[in-house]
């Protein structure tokens, strides 16, 4: 089977700045890869590139068999991205949000409920507006939206930040079971102990390039 992500010498720019400066990376299906590296190394950019949000300037990039250089949009329904922002509508309730994001990929009501259940949002918080949640509760909602999307490739940018101890354990379990079920997971994180024990492979990002570690 083709690899989930295959980047060869990828350069990507924002403004005139090369956020990725020749990144080469290959991720097989069902792997859980941890991206680590200093601030400004290009982790977020790498994830956004894989999600088809950032254009490839030079090099070749294939994600889930789709060539990103030619068509960045085709891959999108099949990946799920949790960025630094949550992508939630503050005026809608938690349930509305999860339902909406689930609906964009045609998730059923049960799947939506299961996702909310999983992140501990099913009872008291379901009908609270997102605008009234604490930071961690919002992050949980965003994760529930992601889970409801049943992606083949999960891209997570510092997913543990803001979550409490229980939420972290729940998240790790979710990611592990997703990987077992055949999904591929790429996590960018600065919490090396936690994310390191979750990952099957650690990759170091420095200066827009990739160095394999461990």
């Amino acid at each position, binding site marked *: 089977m083709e690899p989930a992500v295959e980047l060869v010498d990828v350069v990507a720019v924002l403004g005139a700045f090369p956020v990725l400066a020749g990144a080469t990376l290959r991720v097989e299906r069902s792997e859980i890869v941890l991206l680590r590296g200093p601030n400004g190394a290009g982790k977020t950019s790498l994830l956004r590139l894989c999600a088809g949000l950032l254009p490839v300037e030079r090099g070749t990039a294939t994600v889930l068999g789709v060539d990103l250089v030619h068509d960045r949009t085709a891959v999108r*329904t099949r990946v799920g991205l949790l960025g630094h922002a949550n*992508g939630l509508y*503050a005026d*809608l309730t938690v349930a509305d949000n999860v339902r909406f994001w689930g609906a964009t990929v045609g998730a059923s009501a049960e799947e939506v409920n299961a996702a909310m259940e999983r992140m501990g949002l099913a009872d008291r918080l379901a009908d609270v507006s997102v605008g009234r949640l604490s930071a961690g509760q919002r992050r949980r909602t965003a994760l529930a939206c992601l889970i409801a999307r049943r992606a083949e490739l999960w891209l997570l940018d510092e997913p543990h930040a803001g979550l409490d101890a229980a939420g972290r354990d729940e998240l790790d379990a979710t990611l592990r079971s997703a990987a077992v079920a055949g999904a591929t997971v790429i996590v960018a994180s600065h919490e090396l102990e936690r994310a390191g024990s979750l990952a099957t492979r650690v990759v170091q990002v420095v200066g827009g390039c990739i160095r394999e570690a461990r």
Partner: protein
Amino acid sequence: MLSVWAISRLVAGKDLRVEWRSRVVSNQVVPFAALMMVMFAFALDSDSVLKRVAPGLVWLAAMFSLLVIVQRAFAVETADGALDALRVAGVRGAGIFVGKALALAAQLAVLELILLGAAIVLYDTHLVGSGIALLACTYLTATLGLSFVGTLYGGLAAGAKGRETLLPLLMLPVAAPVLIGATRATEAALGTAGATTSDGWPWIGLLALFAVAFGIGGTLAFGSLIDE
């Protein structure tokens, strides 16, 4: 993958639900528009002039309100990165465009109804029987045209620096033909300054053409406009 139409319904439903929950348009934009009518009356300060220009003022007020509603509609999307999330979710541009434009049209339609009503009362204009059909057509085509233009440029400005100010710059000159057409057609419908109903129908043609052009253009192009 969902069809464009399914996505449109989803997005429109979401936008209307946001409005239903937050009541921003109903509680704030409607009074704003009404207020604007009063302000115009102030600035002009002469009954006879007012009566003559009432149709123009209605559409001018509608256009400024549109600006505010569009700003709000896209602020909701960009406040927490939801527009990015929509793109990653593979929601196609066409679906977002049609969905947001429909929700916008629905809100604008209500607003314009109030403005027209206010004009008829405030500025003491009269509706002649035969003009009703013309007025209804104007209302429909102009609302659709404005919604399409608003959504298109709202999306373009959404990601940009200083979007609060870029949007009016882009939108107003392009929406101007709608303003002219709708004003002339409304004048004809109301019989302002001796205009007759038959003067109005050619303008409906222009308005319809405009709505169709921007509807199709937006549906085709919106995806590439909001994509980086």
